[in-house]
Each structure stands twice: as structure tokens, then as C-alpha cells.
């Protein structure tokens, strides 16, 4: 089953696209696994996600920690710390 990934701000710019549908390998269980998997997909992903500690992730439009399981995710958002307001 494929998962929809959406990217924002400099994560979007570095990866070079605002969103994509990806088939994730069975070993990708947590958010941390997902970020590591993405970094293996190419230089642009590695560049976007190299400082993965600062990367924020939302599952189905709610913030989650990196140890959260991604099972059941329809949409995963990946982005830098927020700077609105």
C-alpha cells in the first residue's frame, strides 16, 4: 500500500517536490525508520533530511514524535520547525 508524503518549506525545496506517493518497505515501522529510508532514496533527500533531529513530522495532520509508529497513516507531512505567527 502506498503512503502520501507531503513536504513543506526548505524540506520541499531540497527534495524538489511538494508531495509524492511512496510504497514503503515492510521494515519501515516508525517515523525514524521512514526518515532513514527517505535518506537512502538520493542526494536530494539526504540533503533535505540530514539533520533529522530538527525535522518535524505529522501523521494525518497531527504532530508526532520520531518514535511514533506510522501504521495507519494516510498522509505524512515532513517539514522544518514552524515559523509562523
Amino acid at each position: 500500500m502506498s503512503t502520501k508524503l507531503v513536504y513543506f518549506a526548505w524540506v520541499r525545496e531540497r527534495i524538489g517536490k511538494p508531495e509524492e506517493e511512496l510504497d514503503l518497505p515492510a521494515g519501515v515501522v516508525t517515523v525514524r525508520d521512514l526518515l532513514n529510508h527517505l535518506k537512502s532514496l538520493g542526494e536530494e533527500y539526504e540533503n533535505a533530511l540530514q539533520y533529522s533531529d530538527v525535522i518535524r513530522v505529522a501523521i494525518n495532520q497531527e504532530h508526532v514524535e520520531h518514535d511514533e509508529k506510522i501504521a495507519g497513516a494516510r498522509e505524512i507531512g515532513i517539514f522544518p520547525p514552524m515559523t509562523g505567527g
Partner: protein
Amino acid sequence: MTVVPTIRVQSADFDLQAEIDALTAGRRDIGAVVTFTGLCRDEQGQLSALELEHYPGMAEAEMRRIAELAIERFSLLGLTAVHRYGKILPGENIVLVVAAAPHRQAAFDGAGFMMDFLKTSAPFWKKEHAADGSQGDWVAAKDADDRARDKWR
């Protein structure tokens, strides 16, 4: 009575007076209204514009979650939050919060809480456009904003 916040994310400017009026019209129990308006600064002439990006859907949802916490915690009688996206010029509005309560401290706290959490958890990002026409950097998140949020814990 459950107080339902008014939350909007829009590219158009907002009308502060209209938002206050919508919150207070016909009411006789509101003793205090605090508004916060965030505007685009030109940073001593270095900035020609800010570009506001947001996560559609989640931006509204997250603002609503924060607003509901604020209403509950400070027993607010009304809370409105409007955040703009797109290109915003120096002197223009970025964000509006209006908090209404029987007494002033709750209204101040409600608006302050809303802004401190909005800053750190609502999915918006600012990119700077420099005055010389070049596209500048993404604004970096500030530790001071995390500390401002944490003071409510």
C-alpha cells in the same frame, strides 16, 4: 455553553474591527477583549516581503486545537484566530488573535497563550525576500519562541 473558536487561514487581509464585532455583538457578559496583530517588519530596510507557506488543512486543525485549549484553560467567552499566507509586504498584517473574557487577565492570557503555541506548533513557514530582489532564507525557528511556549506549562 461550549465556546467554539473562529479559525481561518486566508491569503486576504483581515478586518480586526469586524472580527471583534462578530465576537462581542449583542453580548453583555464580556468585560475584556484583547487583540494581537502580527505585522511584517522590513528589518531596517533589508526586507521587501515575507512569503508565508502553510500546510493546508493541518494549519487550521492545529490552530483549532490550540484555541480549544486556550478557551478551556482561561474560560474564554470567545476566541478568533486568523492567519494569512502568501506574499506579505512590510507594514501588512500576518496574524490576528482576538480573545474575549469577563475579566482582563483571562483575555490577556488567552491571546498570549494562543500566539505562543501558534508560533511553535501551527504549520506555517516564513521565507524572506531581500530588498535587493534576491530570494532570501527561510526564517529560522527561535529558541525564545520555545521558551515563551514552555512558560505556560
